[in-house]
């Protein structure tokens, strides 16, 4: 099995704060890996270390077989970096941007032009190609930004929170683009704060917090790790919520959410748990607004992992 990205015990300190604390990662070639974590977890630092923007204090990072410390130039020829804000020239047009970056990547003028046209076409920007980028929508800007990272068809593409600040439409455009890129064989490392984004796109996920790996695996593995289905009771009246919680407290502690008037309790027994909840509520004489059994989501995984971590 080949890995396009390997990090071994990466450590990076800023003063007393460890941005990365013996961080390990292995991403299989051609897959999409999601790096998930709250703000300040160290996600961007991982990307910056892999893309040779920063030196780490210790540990090693390898990109497409090249060590970032000993062969940074080879790393730079193997990657595309898409940072947190679209790094494109606002005054130039889309085609001019791609041509400039193409020529900086070493393409001749004609090759750069035809590559630019190819990428504009692929990302649906042909029509906007000669307009200045300052007039682009957020989604268009992001797609151009991603296109600029794909000029040499890199072995690895880094996307640092690519959909932050985009509207739902822009988001789904970018998701489609990322899927396309991975299908073409490029390994993608994606950082995100959005669990559904990782769930939708990633083959494997690393959850990180305070510079360390908290959990890793496929989305399904992570959900299974948390195991149980959940029984969710929605009450009619906030006054009932404590009574409901008391009656469904079978062998797990329920989670009360006053905003949505729900009581959620893990049910290791699956549907049997739902049945028990119905009986308990009936015995207590409470008629719920709604009663449901749901599979754990990545949100649950994330919350439980980071809660454990911060405890």
């Amino acid at each position, binding site marked *: 099995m080949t890995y396009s990205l390997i990090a071994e015990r990466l450590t990076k300190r800023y003063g007393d704060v460890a941005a990365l604390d013996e961080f390990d990662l292995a991403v299989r070639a051609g897959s999409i890996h999601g790096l998930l974590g709250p703000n300040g977890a160290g996600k961007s630092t991982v990307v910056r270390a892999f*893309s*040779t*923007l*920063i*030196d780490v204090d210790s540990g090693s990072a390898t990109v497409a077989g090249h060590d970032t410390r000993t062969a940074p*130039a080879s790393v*730079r*020829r*193997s*990657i595309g*970096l898409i*940072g*947190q*804000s*679209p*790094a*494109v*020239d*606002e*005054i*130039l*047009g889309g085609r*001019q941007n791609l041509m*400039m*970056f193409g*020529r*900086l*990547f*070493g*393409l001749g003028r004609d090759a750069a032009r035809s590559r630019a046209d190819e990428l504009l076409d692929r990302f649906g920007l042909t029509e906007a190609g000669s307009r*200045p980028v300052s007039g682009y929508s957020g989604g268009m800007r992001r797609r151009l930004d991603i296109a*600029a990272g794909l000029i*040499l*068809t890199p*072995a690895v593409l880094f996307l640092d929170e690519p959909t932050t600040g985009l509207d739902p439409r822009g988001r789904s455009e970018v998701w489609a683009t990322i899927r396309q890129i991975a299908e073409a*064989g490029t390994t993608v490392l994606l950082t995100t704060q959005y669990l559904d984004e990782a769930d939708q796109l990633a083959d494997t996920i690393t959850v990180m917090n305070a510079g360390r790996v908290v959990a890793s695996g496929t989305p399904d593995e992570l959900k299974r790790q948390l195991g149980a289905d959940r029984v969710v009771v929605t009450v009619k009246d906030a006054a009932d919520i404590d009574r409901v919680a008391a009656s469904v407290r079978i062998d797990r502690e329920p989670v009360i959410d006053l905003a949505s008037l729900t009581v959620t309790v893990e049910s290791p027994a699956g549907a049997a748990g739902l049945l028990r909840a119905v009986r308990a509520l009936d015995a207590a004489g409470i008629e719920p607004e709604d009663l449901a059994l749901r599979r754990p989501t990545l949100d649950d995984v994330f919350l439980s992992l980071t809660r454990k971590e911060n405890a």
Partner: protein
Amino acid sequence: MTTPPAPSPALRNAWILTQRELLHWVRQPALPIFGLLFSIMLLLMFAFLFGGAIAVPGGGDYVTFLLPGMFTLTMLFGLEGTLQAMSTDAAKGITDRFRSMPIGSSAVALGRSGADLASSILNLAVLMGGGLLIGWRITSDVGSALLAVLLLLWLRFSLLWIGIFLGLIFRGPGATMAVQVLIWPIGFLSNVFVSPETMPGWLGAIAQWNPISATATATRQLFGNPTGVTSGWMADGGVLLAVAWPLALTLVFLPLSARAYRRLRR
């Protein structure tokens, strides 16, 4: 996967980055045009509004005294452009994109020099044209005049490194604001508009030692314009000083810029 082409030499990449600036002019001509209008306005203001009240020590026409000073001041004001371009690229993540690409830091710096020198040449050309219209003349020979232009660009080149350095160590629009404010006293506390010989002693000394004054005096001498200098080392050593000052600035700020660029990796 396409085979990555061989790494390109720094000069080729620098030229590509210079072209980026030229494309900016074509795409958004309003900005350079306003810059030029501002220079012209300043020129006319001093030539006609204040000029009548200013006497040049040692004699000579004020407009012909003023023009080389204005050329020099334009080089100083160019510093703002460098800083602005640097901080915009840093804020947009373009600096990081360049750093993640197989192009050297020297190409990025040389590209910035190319772009800024190009805009300075344009500025100089327009000011010279304006100067000729209001009576400024070159009374020396072609060689001296060319040397004067080279000295002006040499000053601009040295200030470039100050702009790059400040752009790398101060992030955000605050730094640009600070420079915009500070650049005025630095520009005015020189012999650009009036001869230091007319100032109180201590102020005149500061103005005389200002690197801007060295280039202004040297270009006045080389264009055959009145210098406003009647005695002292400035009268003889103008050209030498106009070579030495920018050299000293470059020797200090080029390594500092390179260091600041490396420190981005921290």
